[in-house]
């Protein structure tokens, strides 16, 4: 919910970057609005959508502050769960490390595979 404005803003920018002439060409080629979206608009916006999704996942993942403040221990997300290993009873390094690696691994793997899309998405429209 907190990330919605940035998602809307990013997607708006990416979709706006798609040249109008290409959509007009599709219209001239006989594509209906549905076909235009399905075959032209969406495939061309995939890098932008991929980078938005990834950025959103990263931001959600990092919302430790809010989760610490707002959630109970029964409904704790991963970030709050990791923080719980640092408690007045002591620092549980082994568990803390294991939980941290588990926490960053999915993002790392996802980022690794989508880095090409992510970088292209972030620089989309910056240069001609």
């Amino acid at each position, binding site marked *: 919910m907190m990330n919605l404005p940035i998602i809307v803003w990013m997607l708006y920018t990416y979709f706006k970057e798609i*040249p109008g*002439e*290409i959509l*007009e*060409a*599709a*219209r*001239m*080629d*006989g*594509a209906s609005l549905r*076909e235009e979206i399905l*075959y*032209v608009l969406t*495939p*061309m916006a*995939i890098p932008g959508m991929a980078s938005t999704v990834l950025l959103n996942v990263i931001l959600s993942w990092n919302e430790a502050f809010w989760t610490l403040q707002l959630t109970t221990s029964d409904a704790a997300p991963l970030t709050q769960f990791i923080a719980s290993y640092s408690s007045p009873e002591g620092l549980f390094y082994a568990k803390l490390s294991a939980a941290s690696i588990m926490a960053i691994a999915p993002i790392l793997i996802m980022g690794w595979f989508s880095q090409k899309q992510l970088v292209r998405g972030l620089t989309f429209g910056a240069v001609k």
Partner: protein
Amino acid sequence: MGQIQLNQVSKSFGSVEVIPPLDLTIEDGEFVVFVGPSGCGKSTLLRLIAGLEDVSGGHVTIDGADATAVPPAKRGLAMVFQSYALYPHMSVKKNIAFPLRMAGLGQAAQDKKVEDAARVLNLTDYLDRKPGQLSGGQRQRVAIGRAIVREPAAFLFDEPLSNLDAALRVGMRLEISELHKRLDTTMIYVTHDQVEAMTMADKIVVLQAGVIEQVGSPLELYQRPRNTFVAGFIGSPKMNQIEGPEAAKHDATTIGIRPEHIDISETEGTWKGTVGVSEHLGSDTFFHVQTEASAEPLTVRATGERALGYGDTVYLTPRPDHLHRFDSKGLRLE
């Protein structure tokens, strides 16, 4: 068939009228070029014919049927854009096949038509490549291929060669002319380059501020421009236009003389002048000569090389039978 008629077609964006009501008939099989300076409304006019813009008034008729309210895809026209407008995520083959796919044609028929178009345009070896892996000329050929497979009533070209370098532009110009001869289909071509207009067109439509200044064959426009605008716009280098006492001698407000219709001599002539900058093209030399006749330097074309340098005194003589006369409104006097 591909006869297109515009009856009192106009276009306004809000309160700004970019195209006042105009009439124009484009005959079947004609190669018509819309030419004019930037912002004269030539692209808008093409988009009105294509259906990408709605007309503010008047009717567009294609092959006798009123197409004013018909959507772009149903008008039977194909358009080639300045930026090529290829689908970057599709291969060349899929790009060319896209209109056929949208028309619901079977795979075998699609493949055959794509192969035929690719053969015509020398794209057979590139069918599996993406547009990003092609040169500018090849991309433009793909865009033309996408238009050809639809077998349209007319092709619409919106400054298709503007993004290409000079050498490639000449080559593509010939290819498009060749294609027109082979397909014998109506073509409407928008450009601001009057050389393209002169070399390709059967009929040129000169536009200024949305108004048709003159319609005619390239040579008609060159030899008998209707007004000073057309006289200045058609021809490269442009026609010399002289006002003042020199024009009054010929009972005109403005007289026009093309650079190739002025004789240059080092001994005698009508106007005495001083040579300014010379442009040596090998086959011709263009001299810019400052004379008493005109405030602006006159451009003179001499065939081959002439040993005249900066600051030399020369005499210019216009050929009387090639003198164009215009009145105070800039209209041609016969």
